[in-house]
């Protein structure tokens, strides 16, 4: 799902895409879902779209 969000950021700059993904996760995902994705990102570095990884980092901050 997060990858799909990132895919639909075609045409945006990386910063715009990160902002959109961050806002989307914050607005619509449960904390548990975000944690689960963050765990996946930590355990499988590079598997997620890098913009999603950046968004997760911002949410954790």
């Amino acid at each position, binding site marked *: *799902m997060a990858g799909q969000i990132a895919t*639909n950021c075609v*045409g*945006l700059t990386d910063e715009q895409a990160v902002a959109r993904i961050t806002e989307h996760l914050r*607005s*619509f995902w*449960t*904390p548990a879902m975000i944690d689960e994705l963050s765990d996946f990102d930590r355990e499988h570095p590079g598997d997620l779209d890098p913009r999603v990884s950046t968004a997760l980092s911002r949410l954790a901050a």
Partner: protein
Amino acid sequence: MTLLHEPDYGTPASTSPESIDVVVDGIPVSVPVGTSVMRAAAEAGVGVPKLCATDSLQPFGSCRLCLVEIDGKKGTPASCTTPCEPGMVVRTQTPRVEELRRNVMELYISDHPLDCLTCPANGDCELQDMAGVVGLREVRYGYEGENHLDGPTDSSNPYFSFDESKCIVCSRCVRACDEIQGTLALTIVGRGFDSKVSPGGRSFFDSECVSCGACVQACPTATLEEKSVIDLGMPTRTVQTTCAYCGVGCSFNAELRGDELVRMVPTKDGGANEGHSCVKGRFAWGYATHTDRVLTPLVRASIDEPWREASWEEAISYAADRIRDIQSRHGVDSVGGITSSRCTNEEVFVVQKMIRAAFGTNNVDTCARVCHSPTGYGLKQTFGTSAGTQDFKSVAQADVIMVIGANPTDAHPVFGSRMKRRLREGARLIVVDPRRIDLVRSPHIESDYHLQLQPGTNVAVVNAMGHVVATEGLIHRDFVADRCDPTTFAAWEEFIRQPENSPEAVEAITGVPAEELRAAARLYAAGPNAAIYYGLGVTEHSQGSTMVMAMANLAMATGNIGRDGVGVNPLRGQNNVQGSCDMGSFPHEFSGYRHVSDDAVREQFEALWGAELRGDPGMRIPNMLDAAVMGEFKALFVQGEDLAQSDPNTQHVQRALESMELVIVQDLFLNETARYAHVFLPGTSFLEKDGTFTNAERRINRVRPVMASKTGKQEWEVTCDLATALGYPMHYDSSSQIMDEIAGLTPTFAGVSFSLLDEVGSVQWPCNAEHPLGTPIMHVEGFVRGKGAFQVTPFVPTDERTTRRYPLVLTTGRILSQYNVGAQTRRTANVAWHDEDVLDIHESDAEARGIADGSWVTIASRVGTTVMRANVTDRVPPGVVYTTFHFPDSGANVITTEYSDWATNCPEYKVTAVEVTPTLRGPEASTVVAGAESVHA
């Protein structure tokens, strides 16, 4: 005919702003220019006898009963077809016209059965009334001459009969079918004495009649009569309420004898329908008293056990204990609920309140997830509000109508009739749909352009239209500069002008010829008033939200927002799906679409509800199901939804439900979801409810109880009992009190109350101090969000691709006579028209596979298989197949996939790669009624 005789002015009202003065029987009256003499008389309080005239139809002048004398004019003109002139002096009662009227009535009665006392229309017959009004005392012609008294009766339609012997050939029925419904199924055949009404030389059932009932309503005699009136007798009282089928939200007078419903008659004052109806609302209400109704709570410890009847106290207590037990072992968020899109606003509000305040979680979602959630997302991003922009009446001012992924003549029939009326007046039409829907070509209607796109390419098509608008100088720069955010507009314009968005660049993937797409775009941009109407063919895609935003971009770029005749109009499917969303059924929003993280809003709810509320979003339905399969989500409260039939990837839904420890279903019938339930709480039909529905045009209508609750409780009372049993006391004295609470907490509903609705009929939200009588057209002075926000909408192809193994694309939709999962309509005589889901397949695809029309076929996707009969047709293009989802046995969702909209998880029902092969046998246990489990141990 109706019990409640609403005033009939004889001819339609004129909309002219200029007035003229006339005198009728010495009474001066001022009327708009264009008003007929008959209507002017009625306005003056003078009734002119009439039979062929009625104010819902254009005047016809055939019955010759409404003759009058007018000073300075020769003869005795028909008042219905004579327009008023300034200073006209009319006399409606003179010896000359009185004699002429009696002569006319003599002729009518000489060829009419004299069985008034046993006629089903006795006491409700305009012919009978007019005979009395004109003072008929004898029929000098006798009854021995040639006549029509042995005319046959056509009883082929399940709901009404046509008794030719009683027909006075006033042609009201023919005109009603033409002007109101727009089907043109009826005609007058023969000439003179041989004239008679004919449904095209066939029976009513076999004709093109869509059984809307407009002819029955228009008929002044017993010729066209509801079978329920014939069987039960005339109703004796009436209750005004609202239909529980589609998102049009028609107002009806429920006419009863005691508490037995005799018929539903559409109200002339209905804001959404103005006196019209469709077969479902008008006739298909029998499900409310069907023997399949479960009226007693049921419980069982395991879904492998039979149901056991229980008292309300036991069932509620059992449910509450189980919920708390599960939460103690698996956490607060291991439970959740789904609100209904068919229940009232009040019923939905208390369910989401129970889930948030009593369950302690924001795991609440609604059926809109699987239909118009992209509408909520997309229109909020662009305009600032999660709803359509216009009222239904607005279509009458449209010059160009673009219908995208919708089939209004089937799914929103009464609105479809309005649209057809405007199209017959000359409005231009663009249809964007893989299928040849009826609007593409039907009597007196033909689309200017049918963009028959490949499923899954909506965004490419609308982007290409935007490209044409931007590159051919068709942007409404003044509107954009005045009303839209300049930064987002600049970004969009730069994006949309890119060559990859051109019609030529996307032709190969969309299948739409570039020149045709360019012409359609130019037509839309030219307007002057261009309106977009869309449905689930837009939203139920992996880019559903993107598509909604793309349409909003197009409307803003061309200045088609903020007045009559334009707009972006979602045709919301269910009677209260709009209301369900409004009431805070989404996991991330309170009522009125305010995010749960908004501290000020949340604190307001906490203060009134006396409970601490969560500020983080909860799970959507797909998340709940996934979590259930993972063993993390354990209990679900399901209000009036059947996700085991309606949600995609049925096997996954079933696995999820089976994984839960507790499923509570509140519904009318034991549906597919109830197979996995542990507690069944019987619900109420719309005939028993007391509350409100909100239709697709944001119109809040009253739903009034026609009969007492057959379960002994209102659904909101049950919810309150469950919340109380969970330790969160919840009590209301009435559903009106619930609406008062909604109004107190929800700015867009601030002015709404039952007393206001009783006074004015209905209001469209926002209804508040600024708009005390509601808001028909939104974004008039400015967008709700301030400036309209353009969104960059790149086309991203769906991951669902055809392959050699699955070379066809399946898309799904609705049919007129059935409704959604068919729980209601399958339990009515509507099965006569559609008793199974069938697969539409193009003749070339059928021939290549050796498939004959009507034969059984297997439809297989990578997810599952199902079996249906094939309907070989050219309505679908080669490569595309189509079916409906009204019957559980057809299992349409056994083959739909897990793909969904990127923003909202709205399932991609409209694009499934399949293969279709002949098969010898149909599905097991083929039945037209959903299987009802035994309720006894």
